[in-house]
C-alpha cells in the first residue's frame, strides 16, 4: 500500500488525513483501545499535545526505526513511512513549542532515524537541494583551549616526520592519569617541562585552565551546534580562565619554581631524579620537582612583553597593537574600528583604576570572551537563490574550513585567499580544502577526532575496572599504572588510524580488518628478544598471555615514519613535552589473523565497550548496529531492570538469556547476536585461552562465539556468523556499511544529522570515496565542497 506520492506519481493525502490513514492501516489493529498490544493504545492518543508528547515520541521512534509495524506485518512504503514520521516530528515541535521545543531528532544519537534506502536511492524526487540552517556553532571546548594554548605555549610547528611530537595546533591533552577524571585542561607553563617523574605531580604542579563549557557524556559524535550554548555559569568560569591566561601572558609563569624563574642558567636538570641547583644536588621530592624543566625559559611572545618592558602605562600605540593581536587570536579577524576604540578605552580606564597589571588583565579579558571567540558564525551572505539559500560569506568559509580540519584559526594561505577575494566560490573552496588535505605539514587533528568519536575506543580509560576482575584476567596494574596503560592503548589505536590514513586506501576496510597493530615497547629492551619479555612492562600484556605466538616484528618504513621517530609519541597524549629524547617505543606488529582484525579487536575498543567486571555484548552489538549497519535501538524503557543474573561462574551468553525473553528480545536481537561473537576476547581485550583446541573463558567454560546479523537493512549481510572475525569481514566488504560510514562522516563535518535533502551530498561523497579507492581525503573533500557544507538557509522563528 502507498499513501503518499513519489513526487511524480499519485497525489499525497494532506496532513492530518494522511497521518490518520497511516495509523488506521498500520497501527490500530494491534494498538486500538481493546487490544492495546504492549499496553499501548494509539487510538486514545488523539493529536499531539504537550501532555501526550512522551507517547508520541515513542511512536516516532518505533516507526522511524522500523520496529513498527512488526516485521511480520505488512510494511508501509519507504515514502509513506517518511511522510508519517516527518508529520509526527512537525506535530511534536508545534506541541512542545512553549516547553522549549522538540529537538530529539536533531541529536547525533538519532541520526540513523532517516531511512537509509531513501538517502542512497533516487526514490525521493523534487526536494529542495541541500543546505544547512543558518546557525552559531559553539567552538568546541577543546578548540577554545587550543586558542588559549597558542597564546601562552611555545610549541613547535608540526613536523610530519615526527607525528607523535606535540605541535602547535594540537589539542590540549585529555588524560585520566593526570587528572583522575579525564578532564580537558591546559596547564600554564607546562611547555617549559621536558618530562615528569611522578604522574601525580602534573595536576598539582601547575595553575591550569580547564575546559568549563559542558560536553556531552554520550557515546558517539559530540559536537553538534544544536547541543550546546555557552551558559551564564560557564561564562563566570570563562572569566576566571581568561584572567588566569592573561596573568600568565603578562607576568609570566607563577608555577615555575622561583629559583628557575630568577635565573634559569644557574641550574641543570637531569632525567634521573636529581637536579643540580646552584651547584648542589636536589631531589625531586617536592611537587615542583616532579617536573623536569627544560634548560632556560623562553616565554611565548605577545605584545604584553613590550608593554611590560618599562614601568610606564601602556601607550595608545601599544594598545593598538595588543588589541588586534588578541582579537585575531581569538576570533580569527581584526577588530572593527568601533570595537577597537571601545576596547582600548576600557583597558585604559581599568589600568588607571587598578594599576598596570590588574588593569590589563581585567581590561583584556572581554576579548577572550568575545562571542566570536566562543561561537563560529554561519549565516551566509548575498542574495538568496530560488530555494532561499545563501552561500557562506568569505570569512565564514575561512573559519569553517579551518574549523573542520584543525583547532586553529585559518592558516596564512587561507587568510590571503580571503583578503584577495579568492574565497567565494565552490571552486575556491575545493582549491583550499585540497591544498590543506594534501599538505602534510598542516596538522589536522579533527580527522583523528572523527575516528575517535566514530569508534569510541578513546573511552577506554573511562571504564572503571573492578580490581578483582582485572586480576582474574592477569592484569595486575592498579591506579595510575592501569590508567597509564589505558592511555597507551588509546594512543596505539590513534597511531594505527594515522597509519591507515597515511596510506589512504580502502580506509574503512583497512580499519576494520587489518591484523597489524601499533604497540608500545619498552625502549630499553633490545629488539631481538621475543615479545614475551616485554609483557609486563608494555601494553602487549593487553593483547595476550600466550605471547610466543606473536609474529616477529615487522620492519616498517611507513610514510608516517613510525620507526624513525626519535621521541616517544606517547608523550603527546599526556605530556606537553617536546624535548625528551630516546628510542621509539612504538612498533608495528602483525598478529595472527585469527586473533586480531582491525579496530573492533583492539583492546582499546573492547575495553571501551566493556564494563567494570566483564564484556558488554550489548554495547558492542549496539555499536555495530548503529555505526556499521545504520540501524538503531529505541531508548531503554525506564521499566527495564537492566541487570543480568548474578551467576559469576556462568558464561555471559548464558546469563544473557534474560534478554531473550519476549519483551526484551525485540530490541536485543538487534544487538546481542552482534556483540556475543566478541566473546573470543575477555573484558580487557585479550584473546581468550585455547585449551584442547577450544577457547575457554576465565571459569574454564567453553566459549561460544557464534552470532548473527538480523534485519540489517541489506539482505546480503543477514545470516549467522561463527565468530567476530567472520562478522567483521562480512561487514567490511559491504557497500551498505560503507554508506553508513559516509553518513557518520557527514554528521561530523556538517555538525548535524542528514535529512532527505542531503541525499545528493551523501551519494556524491560515497562515490568520491569509492572512485578514489576508499580515500578518506576524497570523502572529506567531497563533503566540504557540497551544498550541505557551503549553503545556509535562514531559520524561521
Amino acid at each position: 500500500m502507498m499513501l503518499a506520492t513519489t513526487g511524480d506519481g499519485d497525489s499525497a493525502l494532506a496532513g492530518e488525513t494522511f497521518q490518520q490513514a497511516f495509523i488506521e492501516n498500520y497501527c490500530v489493529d494491534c494498538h486500538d483501545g481493546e487490544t492495546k498490544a504492549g499496553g499501548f493504545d494509539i487510538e486514545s492518543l488523539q493529536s499531539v499535545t504537550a501532555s501526550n508528547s512522551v507517547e508520541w515520541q515513542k511512536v516516532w521512534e518505533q516507526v522511524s526505526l522500523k520496529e513498527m509495524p512488526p516485521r511480520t506485518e505488512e510494511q508501509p512504503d519507504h515514502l509513506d513511512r517518511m511522510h508519517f514520521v516527518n508529520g509526527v516530528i512537525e506535530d511534536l515541535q508545534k506541541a512542545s513549542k512553549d516547553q522549549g521545543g522538540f529537538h530529539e531528532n536533531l541529536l547525533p544519537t538519532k541520526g540513523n532515524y532517516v531511512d537509509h534506502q531513501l538517502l542512497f536511492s533516487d526514490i525521493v524526487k523534487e526536494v529542495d537541494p541541500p543546505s544547512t540552517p543558518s546557525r552559531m556553532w559553539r567552538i568546541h571546548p577543546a578548540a577554545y583551549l587550543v586558542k588559549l594554548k597558542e597564546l601562552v605555549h611555545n610549541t613547535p610547528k608540526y613536523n610530519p616526520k615526527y607525528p607523535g611530537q606535540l605541535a602547535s595546533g594540537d589539542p590540549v591533552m585529555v588524560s585520566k592519569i593526570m587528572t583522575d577524571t579525564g578532564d580537558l585542561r591546559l596547564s600554564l607553563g607546562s611547555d617549559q617541562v621536558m618530562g615528569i617523574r611522578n604522574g601525580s605531580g602534573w595536576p598539582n604542579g601547575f595553575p591550569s585552565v580547564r575546559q568549563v563549557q559542558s560536553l556531552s557524556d554520550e557515546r558517539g559524535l559530540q559536537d553538534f551546534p544544536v547541543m550546546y550554548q555557552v551558559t551564564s555559569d560557564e561564562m563566570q568560569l570563562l572569566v576566571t580562565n581568561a584572567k588566569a591566561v592573561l596573568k600568565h601572558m603578562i607576568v609570566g609563569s607563577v608555577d615555575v619554581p622561583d629559583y628557575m624563574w630568577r635565573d634559569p642558567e644557574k641550574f641543570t636538570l637531569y632525567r634521573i631524579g636529581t637536579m643540580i641547583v646552584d651547584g648542589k644536588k636536589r631531589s625531586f621530592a617536592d611537587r615542583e620537582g616532579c617536573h623536569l624543566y627544560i634548560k632556560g625559559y623562553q616565554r611565548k611572545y605577545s605584545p604584553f612583553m613590550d608593554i611590560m618592558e618599562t614601568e610606564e602605562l601602556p601607550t595608545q600605540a601599544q594598545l593598538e597593537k595588543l588589541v588586534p593581536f588578541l582579537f585575531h587570536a581569538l576570533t580569527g579577524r581584526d577588530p572593527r574600528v568601533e570595537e577597537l576604540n571601545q576596547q582600548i578605552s576600557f583597558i585604559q580606564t581599568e589600568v588607571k583604576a587598578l594599576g598596570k597589571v590588574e588593569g590589563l588583565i581585567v581590561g583584556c579579558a572581554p576579548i577572550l570572551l568575545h562571542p566570536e571567540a566562543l561561537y563560529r558564525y554561519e549565516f551566509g551572505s548575498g542574495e538568496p537563490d530560488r530555494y532561499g539559500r545563501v552561500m557562506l560569506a568569505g570569512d565564514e568559509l575561512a573559519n569553517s574550513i579551518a574549523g573542520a580540519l584543525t583547532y586553529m584559526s585559518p592558516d596564512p594561505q587561507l587568510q590571503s585567499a580571503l583578503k584577495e577575494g579568492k574565497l567565494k566560490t565552490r571552486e575556491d573552496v575545493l582549491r583550499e580544502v585540497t591544498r590543506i588535505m594534501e599538505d602534510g605539514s598542516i596538522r589536522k587533528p579533527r580527522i583523528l577526532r572523527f575516528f575517535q568519536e566514530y569508534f569510541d575506543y578513546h573511552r577506554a580509560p573511562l571504564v572503571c575496572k573492578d580490581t578483582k576482575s582485572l586480576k582474574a584476567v592477569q592484569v595486575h596494574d592498579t591506579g595510575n599504572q592501569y590508567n597509564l596503560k589505558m592511555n597507551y592503548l588509546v594512543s596505539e589505536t590513534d597511531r594505527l588510524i594515522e597509519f591507515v590514513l597515511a596510506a589512504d586506501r580502502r580506509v574503512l576496510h583497512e580499519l576494520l580488518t587489518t591484523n597489524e597493530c601499533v604497540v608500545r615497547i619498552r625502549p630499553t629492551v633490545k629488539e631481538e628478544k621475543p615479545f614475551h619479555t616485554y609483557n609486563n612492562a608494555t601494553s602487549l600484556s593487553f593483547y595476550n598471555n600466550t605471547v610466543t605466538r606473536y609474529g616477529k616484528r615487522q620492519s616498517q618504513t611507513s610514510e608516517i615514519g613510525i620507526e624513525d621517530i626519535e621521541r616517544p609519541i606517547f608523550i603527546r597524549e599526556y605530556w606537553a613535552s617536546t624535548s625528551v629524547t630516546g628510542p621509539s617505543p612504538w612498533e608495528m606488529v602483525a598478529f595472527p589473523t585469527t586473533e586480531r582484525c582491525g579496530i573492533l579487536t583492539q583492546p582499546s575498543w573492547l575495553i571501551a565497550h566493556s564494563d567494570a567486571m566483564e564484556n558488554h555484548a550489548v554495547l558492542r552489538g549496539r555499536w555495530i548496529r548503529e555505526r556499521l549497519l545504520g540501524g538503531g535501538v529505541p531508548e531503554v524503557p525506564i521499566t527495564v531492570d537492566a541487570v543480568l543474573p548474578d551467576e559469576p561462574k556462568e558464561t555471559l551468553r548464558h546469563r544473557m538469556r534474560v534478554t531473550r525473553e519476549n519483551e526484551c528480545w525485540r530490541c536485543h536481537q538487534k544487538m546481542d547476536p552482534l556483540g556475543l561473537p566478541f566473546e573470543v576476547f575477555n573484558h580487557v581485550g585479550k584473546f581468550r585461552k585455547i585449551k584442547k583446541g577450544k577457547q575457554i573463558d576465565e571459569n574454564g567454560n567453553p566459549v561460544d562465539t557464534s552470532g548473527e546479523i538480523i534485519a540489517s537493512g541489506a539482505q546480503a549481510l543477514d545470516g549467522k556468523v561463527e565468530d567476530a572475525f567472520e562478522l567483521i569481514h562480512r561487514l567490511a566488504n559491504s557497500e551498505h556499511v560503507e554508506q553508513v560510514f559516509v553518513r557518520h562522516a557527514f554528521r561530523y563535518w556538517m555538525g548535524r544529522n542528514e535529512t532527505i535533502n542531503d541525499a545528493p551530498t551523501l551519494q556524491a561523497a560515497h562515490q568520491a570515496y569509492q572512485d578514489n579507492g576508499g580515500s578518506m581525503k576524497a570523502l572529506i573533500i567531497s563533503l566540504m565542497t557540497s551544498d550541505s557544507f557551503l549553503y545556509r538557509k535562514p531559520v524561521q522563528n
Partner: protein
Amino acid sequence: MLNRRDMIKGICAVAGASTAVPYCTASAADNKVSQLHGAKQPKRVVFFLQSQGFSDDNCTVKGIKSGKSLKSKDLPVFIDPLSPHRDKLTIIQGLHGKHTSPAHSAYYGCLGGYRRNKSTPFDITIDCALSKVLPEAPVPLLSVGMESLNRMKQVPIFHATSAWGPGDKASMICDPTFLYRIMFGSVATGKQRSTYDENSKMLDFIAKTSTQSARTLPESARQKLKPYRDISAFRDSVSTVSESLKAYMPEFDEKYSAPQHETDWHDAMLDLTIAALKAGLTNVATINSGCGEFYGSWEGLGINPSGHSLGHLSMTSDIWTRIRQYNMRMLSKLVQALEETPEGNGTMMDNTLIVYTSNNADKQHTNGASWPFMTLGNFGGTMQEGHYVKVENDRPINSFYATLLEAAGNPVEHFNMGGAYEKYDTGKGSLRELLT
C-alpha cells in the same frame, strides 16, 4: 514575564530540551506552603550527599525495631557523632533505587529517582522541586561540592546531582573563594570587595558589548547570546539580602585563602552554606561531598588514598569510618548552627529538615537494591524524628521524595516515576510512617 526565581534559576541552566514535564501527578508546582501545620511550618531543607555509598551497616542500630525510638540506643560508630541529636535523627532503611542503575553514581537519578545519566537529567530533582514549594528565597537552590583541593580549584562549578527539569541542570559551586565572592563580595571589604567590583565592571562591559553584537544577528542567534546579558543576574539577586548577609559573613581567613588540606575548604563550604541559610539567601541547599561523582579526597583527615579507588574499600573500613564521622560532625555543626538561631517562637532548626544519604546507594558497585537515608529535624512539625524506620514492601527512593513533598504541603502520588511505579513501587504516595 520571568519572575526573579526563574531568572536566577536561569543562570544555572544549561542548554537542553527544557520541556516542562510535570514531576508530580497532583498539585501545581508553585503552590505555596499551606498553613496546615499550625504555627510551625516547613521552611528549609538541606541535602547532604556522600559519594561512593552509605550502607545499611553504617546506620544499623542494634536491637531496635521499626518505628521505635532511638533515644536510649547506641548509634553505630560510623554515625556516632550524631548521638547528641538522637532525638532529631530518623534512620530510614528498606528503600531501593534499582531503577536508577547507580553503579559509581546515580548522578541526577539520586535526587531525581530515575535512571542514572551523567550528561542529562531526565527530570526535576527533589531539591529543586522542594525549592518550588518552600518559601521563596533569592537563591532557589544553593548546591555546593566538596572534593580534592585541586579539583575544587579547577572545577569551581560542576553539574551532577540537581536539575530543574529535563536537561535543565542546576549548578554546583565547588570553590569556596568563588562562592564567598559571589555571596559576600558586595558587602565585603578589602581584596574581596575590590575583586568583586573589578569583575562587576568587566561583566557589565561584556554584557554591553555582547548586546551590541547581538543587534546585528537574527533572533534565533540572539538567544544564544542571552547568557552574556544574564551574567550578572546572580550578583544582583544576592544584593537583595546584603544587609542580613553582612551579619552572617564569615571572615575570609586562611581557611579560604591558604588551605592546608581540602578539608579546610570542605569546612569553608559548610560555613558558607550555614551563612546562606541563616541570612535567608536560600531555603534549599544540597551539599555534595565528592561532588556527586565517585571520587573525593580527605587528606586533612590523614587519609592518603583518594579518588575512585576509595570506593573499592569496604563501607565499614577504617578509612570510610573516618570519612563518615567527618560527615556526621558536619551535620552536627549544621544542626547546632540552626538551633542557636531564633526563628518565630523557636529556632531555625524547628522548621528545617536535613537529609543525609549517598548519591550512589549503598556501595561503589551497587545495583541500588538498598538505599538508606537519615533525616534530622521535623520539618516544621510535619515529619517524625528520633525513630528508626524500616520501610516495608520494596518501595523506591521516589516514595521518600513524595513524602518530603507532602510534608512541604504539596502531596503527590508519585515523584518522577512515570510509568515505572507499577514495576518498582508496590505502593502509592508518601511513606505514612515518616509523617506526623
